[in-house]
């Protein structure tokens, strides 16, 4: 029997259905096992000694005190690393342990293992490190000017890339410019870094249970540092409590394995929240100058820009983050001429790398602020200026690359514009303070509140760029009407665990789909980042399922003397489209097993040349955000009332999951707009706790109204674009624009060129 949803005609659990995630109930009820919940008997605990200085020479390390603490089983420093002394996603420039110098506050210097976490803390306190404090390099401009000695053998410039496109001398009748700054945002995942390493007897190999975004890349770097061949390092995905880019780099992986191999027993390390703030990379703080030239009617003629990204002490992914930033200078708008200068530099600040939006968040805040200034200069509205310049499929980017993706920019803007404005009156209802700026603090009365509306529109590249061999692997087994899928795709909350099953049910007409353990026993799926897994791992699962279906059809066709091309899946049956044959998939399989493994690749990309020209990206997604905010201008407090968004999703394979990504991304974009920043002073972190690093609460989250723009992308294996990043990219500038608008209604002009916008930026 085929059960269908009477409203949609869709079989539950297939593509297009808002199928319920297999991990959903457990996560809501608190029974889901996160990486930090994993413990086994006889487990030893590890902990990390970190640099208290942003820059210092290590004169000596005396670990003898740690050994005197009862219960200590191992103390390791740089000299105990058997393989490569350094690791890194792009270049291996980051030491497993600092040996001669420390380059940021929080850099690992030593690890200990002991019978209890408390013993570990005592052992760490007993290690004596003699530092000679050095003058830190903290200002990126100083690094660019070459005014500070190299703080690393690889130099202080992580990447310098120019883009020169069209006529660099072109000018427009209208010019607007600004310098924009973004603070350092933390991914602030709730599930802290945790790992459990189990050594093979004899120490010839290791198994690591780890919350990560990319098992195989972790394995490559871990094996190199351990001096083991990759097959001797097995990784199993632990329950991941959020990632947002912060689990792309190595943090505690190598340390945990080293300790376990040294003492021959399982070792587990878990970071505290305070430690987590220095234990992973962050979003790059940035300073971006932009000058837009346009005609008097608002057509963009040329954009000049200069990007400076502070990469902190180590390279991480600064190079591709910078590339992403500068190649998205124009935003989702046509731009015939451009001159862009991009710098990513090394400093003694915290290392920065991947975070949701990956360089485009920074570019978007700048270009969207510029679009509003351009609108004002041309006497146009925020919507009109964007529609006049909206990019279309076939347009050429400032890199010379032609946009082949579906590019419904104008449709995103008009659909967002058509969404209803909030019914909530200015200043809330019934004097409920929770509806006013300041919320529970009862700071504001309705008379203090002004409402503003602002826009942000974005373009985001999907998948990996610049010639990277980006692929995903999946295995599909069909046996007795049950499909088992295996892949190494990290589920970090995005929902691939539900999408994978929906694909198999749609392609193979089965109801029951089992997901095998996520580990390195199969080929790589690539990283859960760059909005890529639905496209890439989804593409791999789809291809593997289709291959199994071909073999099933061959088998059925042979049994019934039919041409396999006549066969199709209808509901849960195999049918002959030109005859009467109809049999349940389960019966069609008839005791056989079909087993296929597929590697899926997106089309290749290229490096940029010295003028920043080249087909460096593979596909793009777009989103428009309209923010409505209420602002208490005197106190500088903001209450975001509504975000309306229309997002180019290609095809919504699971509308509820898409909605979840949109709402979550908006929360993160709102955080960057008005509260989230790692506050630093001379290289030291001032707010490494959730007491002072503020994340939006439910009282800060606005109503979100959504229009899904579904134009299936012919390049995408399932027609679906990645949806994870766009919601957090243009929501930030939309909120800031709405604050500027509200202030204008209050008779106050503020540029608000820096995020997060602080109350003092508005009020003073």
């Amino acid at each position: 029997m085929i059960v269908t949803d009477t409203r949609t005609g869709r079989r539950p659990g297939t593509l297009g259905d808002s199928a319920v995630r297999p991990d959903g109930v457990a996560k809501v009820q608190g029974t889901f096992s996160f990486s930090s919940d994993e413990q086994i008997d006889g487990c030893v605990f590890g902990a990390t000694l970190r640099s208290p200085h942003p820059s210092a020479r290590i004169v000596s390390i005396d670990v003898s005190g740690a050994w005197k603490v009862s219960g200590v089983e191992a103390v390791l420093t740089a000299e105990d690393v058997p393989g490569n002394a350094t690791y890194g996603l792009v270049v291996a420039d980051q030491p497993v342990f600092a040996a001669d110098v420390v380059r940021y506050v929080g850099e690992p210097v030593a690890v200990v293992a002991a019978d209890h976490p408390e013993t570990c803390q005592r052992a760490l306190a007993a290690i004596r490190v003699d530092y000679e404090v050095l003058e830190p390099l903290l200002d990126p401009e100083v690094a660019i000017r070459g005014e500070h000695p190299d703080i690393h053998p690889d130099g202080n410039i992580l990447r310098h890339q120019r883009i020169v496109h069209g006529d660099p001398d072109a000018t427009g009748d209208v010019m607007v410019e600004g310098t924009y700054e973004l603070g350092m945002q933390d991914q602030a995942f709730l599930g802290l870094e945790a790992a459990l390493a189990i050594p093979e007897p004899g120490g010839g190999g290791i198994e690591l249970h780890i919350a990560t975004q990319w098992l195989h890349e972790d394995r490559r770097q871990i094996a190199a540092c351990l001096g083991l061949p990759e097959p001797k390092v097995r990784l199993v995905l632990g329950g991941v409590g959020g990632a947002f880019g912060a689990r792309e780099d190595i943090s505690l992986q190598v340390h945990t394995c080293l300790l376990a191999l040294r003492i021959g027993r399982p070792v587990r390390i878990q970071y505290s929240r305070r430690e987590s703030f220095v234990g992973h990379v962050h979003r790059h703080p940035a300073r971006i100058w932009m000058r837009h030239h346009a005609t008097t009617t608002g057509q963009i003629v040329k954009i000049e820009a200069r990007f400076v990204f502070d990469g902190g002490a180590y390279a991480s992914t600064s190079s591709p983050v910078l590339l992403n930033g500068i190649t998205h200078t124009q935003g989702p708008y046509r731009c015939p001429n451009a001159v862009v200068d991009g710098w990513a530099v090394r400093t003694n600040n915290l290392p920065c790398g991947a975070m949701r939006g990956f360089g485009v968040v920074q570019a978007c805040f700048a270009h969207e602020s510029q679009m509003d200034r351009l609108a004002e200069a041309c006497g146009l509205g925020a919507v009109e200026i964007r529609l006049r310049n909206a990019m279309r499929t076939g347009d050429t980017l400032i890199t010379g690359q032609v946009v082949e993706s579906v590019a419904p920019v104008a449709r995103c803007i008009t659909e967002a514009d058509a969404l209803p404005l909030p019914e909530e009156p200015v200043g809330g209802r019934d004097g409920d303070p929770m509806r006013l700026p300041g919320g529970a603090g009862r700071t504001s009365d309705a008379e203090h509140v002004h409402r503003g509306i602002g826009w942000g529109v974005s373009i985001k590249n999907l998948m990996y760029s610049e010639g990277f061999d980006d692929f995903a692997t999946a295995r599909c087994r069909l046996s007795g009407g049950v499909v088992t899928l295996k892949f190494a795709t990290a589920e970090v909350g995005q929902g691939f665990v539900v999408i994978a099953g929906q694909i198999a049910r749609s392609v193979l007409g089965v109801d029951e789909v089992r997901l095998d353990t996520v580990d390195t026993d199969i080929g790589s799926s690539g990283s859960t980042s760059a909005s890529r897994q639905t496209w890439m791992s989804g593409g791999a699962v789809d291809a593997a399922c289709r291959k199994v279906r071909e073999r099933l059809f061959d088998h059925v066709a042979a049994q019934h003397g039919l041409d396999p091309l006549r066969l199709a899946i209808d509901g849960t049956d195999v049918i002959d489209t030109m005859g009467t044959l109809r049999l349940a998939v389960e019966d069609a399989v008839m005791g056989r097993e079909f087993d296929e493994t597929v590697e899926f690749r997106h089309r290749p990309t290229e490096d940029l040349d010295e003028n920043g020209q080249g087909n460096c990206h593979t596909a793009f997604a777009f989103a428009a955000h309209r923010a409505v905010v209420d602002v208490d201008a005197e106190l500088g407090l903001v209450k975001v009332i509504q975000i309306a968004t229309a997002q180019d999703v290609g095809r919504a394979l699971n509308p509820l999951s898409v909605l979840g990504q949109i709402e979550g991304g908006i929360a993160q974009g709102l955080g960057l707009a008005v509260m989230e920043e790692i506050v630093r002073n001379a290289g030291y972190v001032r707010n490494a706790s959730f007491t002072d690093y503020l994340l939006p609460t439910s009282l800060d989250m606005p109503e979100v109204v959504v229009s899904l723009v579904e134009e299936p992308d012919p390049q995408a294996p399932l027609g679906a674009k990645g949806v994870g990043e766009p919601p957090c990219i243009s929501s930030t500038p939309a909120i800031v624009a709405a604050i500027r608008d509200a202030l204008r209604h209050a008779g106050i002009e503020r540029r608000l060129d820096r995020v997060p916008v602080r109350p003092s930026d508005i009020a003073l």
Partner: protein
Amino acid sequence: MAVVIPIDLDAAMRAASAAPDALILAGGTDVMVEVNAGQRRRALDSDTVIVLDRVRELRRWSHDPERRTVTLGAGVTYTELMTEPLASLLPALAEASRTVGSPQIRNAGTIGGNLATCSPAGDTLPVLAALDADVHLASLNGERTLPVGQFMLGVKTTALTRGELIVGVTAPVLRGAQGYAKVGVRNAMVIAIASACVIVDEDCRDVRIALGSVAPTIIRCPDAERHAAANLDWDRGRATPGVAAEIGERAAADARPIDDHRSTAAYRSRAVALLVGRLVRRGFPDA
């Protein structure tokens, strides 16, 4: 480490006397954060922890209608302060309690704990200061009562002596408007960047103003209070915007704020001036 869990005040005092350096645990919403952050490690190594949440005398509160006072046990939680009838007896204290943390924190955190921690950002403290509340302390050596202004000595520094416990606090039930307002960067669950409490005593035609997060500890604003008493239209219960703003400015002049990772001194001064002015206008609408 020894953990003592007394069930009455006498046992608690005996425990505190026996271990005068003991770590006192009430709701745990400050102490446990410090423990988890590793800041209390040495204390935990050697000391005793005295857990107060089962001491029944501390969990009670009473209303004396004749003397028009409420006496709160030190273990009364923020949630209880927000609940009727306490919320109507001490409305500013209820408003301040609502600004503390999340529901879970408010269910655990206590007024005695807020006093003992004595953070300049403690949310109930400006209200207690503006109410001229009395803090009751007790040890095996006897009981004593201090005006809250003499109890709070500085940043996380109080008049508590070794072996002494906070038993409770007595505050007057006043006729007149009162309110608490607090600026943070988030709409809830946030540490105060600046806060203010304005209490009106209509019977005495008196206004009390206290500020939080703008000095090492909570401050009162005598100049602004005198200006308010003299310039508010008591008969009609009205104030011009100019009078309210002037009261705010005078209050802010007593603030001694600093720059830190949460905000700047300049913003804090501006904020308390506005908050006080607005609180006055809530009690005394347009003339």
